[in-house]
């Protein structure tokens, strides 16, 4: 349904989106995950035809988003980062206006407006002026606007921003219920949102795709990279760096962090392991054989949150700082 190939968008010298390719199948929900400024909004704007790509192509339902922009625009519903609302209009007349400009047939218009109100659960606010609504309600009017013409493809830029926890859950349920009949791309920087609503995830950072998989697959793929947590007592004649080097020297260990535990002479060691390497027994054997005292050894699985941080934080920020957040 959506095909993006080698898409690049540069603003002057800055490449906001760089060589991005992905596809979304019919009825799928794709999560677009990345920190702020990663290029999510830019990608969405190119898909909706609001911005031209510098190079590369994007197709929706077989139509090029730039060449056949009108055909593409007929098929998409789009909620931009800031919901595009007219504050002086009432909710119902705003949705009626959007239905008109989206080309909904006159006979179906009233029905579609009611359906959109219903879906966004704002039927009781239909007569209210948009400027009198709270931020959460405005966000929902924005969502209703993207659904009013029953589009094949729905593009949502941070749909749950500004909502309270209860509303967030409602909106997630709504998005999930739309899948199947609609193809959906949603962007977010909130991880649980992706694991709860999306079939597949694209993680993007600084304009590049850093990972792309199903939600389960992504977790599994990186779960191979497990973390081993150790608590070791260092005997006299050995020090922290010797311990550090010993653990780091073991095959299959990617990175090591050592931290002294106050007043006990013990150290806490976090060893991150490569995919498919179970280093636990080898590690235990080596520690004991070299005269250290092993107090604890356990493996910790990386949460999606840590995976996300791992993929999107650059090298200059120490991983320890990241994982504490």
């Amino acid at each position: 349904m959506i095909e993006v190939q080698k898409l690049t968008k540069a603003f002057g010298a800055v490449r906001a989106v760089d060589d991005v390719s992905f596809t979304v199948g019919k009825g799928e929900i794709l999560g677009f995950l990345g920190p702020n400024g990663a290029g999510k909004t830019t990608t969405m704007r190119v898909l909706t035809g609001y911005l031209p790509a510098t190079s590369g192509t994007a197709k929706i339902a077989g139509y090029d988003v730039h060449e056949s922009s009108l055909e593409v625009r007929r098929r998409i519903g789009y909620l931009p980062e800031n919901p595009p609302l007219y504050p002086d209009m009432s909710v119902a007349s705003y949705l009626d206006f959007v239905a008109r400009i989206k080309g909904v047939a006159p006979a179906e218009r009233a029905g579609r407006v009611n359906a959109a109100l219903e879906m966004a659960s704002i039927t009781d606010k239909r007569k209210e002026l948009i400027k009198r609504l709270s931020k959460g309600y405005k966000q929902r009017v924005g969502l209703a606007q993207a659904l009013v013409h029953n589009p094949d493809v729905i593009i949502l830029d941070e749909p749950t921003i500004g909502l309270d926890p209860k509303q967030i859950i409602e909106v997630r349920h709504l998005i999930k219920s739309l899948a199947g009949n609609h193809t959906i791309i949603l962007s977010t920087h909130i991880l649980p949102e992706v694991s709860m609503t999306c079939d597949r995830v694209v993680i993007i950072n600084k304009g590049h795709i850093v990972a792309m998989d199903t939600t389960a697959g992504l977790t599994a793929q990186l779960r191979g990279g497990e973390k081993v947590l150790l608590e070791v007592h260092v005997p006299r004649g050995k020090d922290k760096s010797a311990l550090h080097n010993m653990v780091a020297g073991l095959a299959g260990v990617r990175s090591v962090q050592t931290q002294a535990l106050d007043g006990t002479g013990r150290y806490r060691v976090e060893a991150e392991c490569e995919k498919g390497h179970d280093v636990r027994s080898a590690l235990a054997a080596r520690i004991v054989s070299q005269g250290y005292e092993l107090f604890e050894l356990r493996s910790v699985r990386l949460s999606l949150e840590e995976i996300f941080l791992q993929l999107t934080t650059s090298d200059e920020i120490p991983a320890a700082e990241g994982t504490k957040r």
Partner: protein
Amino acid sequence: MRGLVAIYRKEMGHYFVSPIAYLVAGVFLVLTGFFFYQFVAIFMERASEAAMQSMRYGRAPEIDVPGMVIRNFFGLLGTVILFVAPMLTMGSYTEEKKRGTMELLMTSPLRELDIVLGKFFATLSLFALMLLPTALYQVVLFVFSEPRPPWRLILAGYAGVLLLGAVLIALGGFLSSLTENQIVASMTTFGLFLILWVIDISARGSSSAMGEVLQYVSILRHYDDFTRGVIDTSSLVFYASLIVLGLFLTQRSVDALRWRRA
């Protein structure tokens, strides 16, 4: 076409709840009402003076009061709308950009021309509605003058005001589409109209070749024909071309938003 109508309806709805539209219309009507009263008073006084003189010296007074009032009134209207039109057009596109609703319009299956024409006709309708109460002044003239004033003169005057207004709205809309700031839009539009006005004034005094060219391109000089009751084809063509030019430029500029938006 459906898109054009939708935009038109939205714009009209917006005008009816907009304090700016009411304020502009109110000021416009107070100004024109005051000047209408002044013109009537001045020409009545002049006519009665002439009548007194004719009693003394025996020459018949030849002052056509309603004709003079109508001509001067429309002449003044032409100047007043130079100041009013920027207020009507300044928000046309700047507001949409500031609210982010331009993104909605641009990602909807609308042609740029639908947006441009919908907005143009809406502003023109508001302008016509603003003019409507001034027809009352003409009714006053009809009721109290003997013989009746020539209605063709009044119709030609309104045709001229509407055409001049349409030119100004088309050009003002274009300037509004260039910026995101209402103040910038209104000031540049105002500046442009002021230049047009100054060109007209300087051209009137001059008899050089340059002066004649300026007189021909002066939008107010063509307007004078209308206030004298003359509807000249060349004036119609001139105004129509300016309207088309303004709308064309606006359409290009809206289209260009797709290319340069950051």
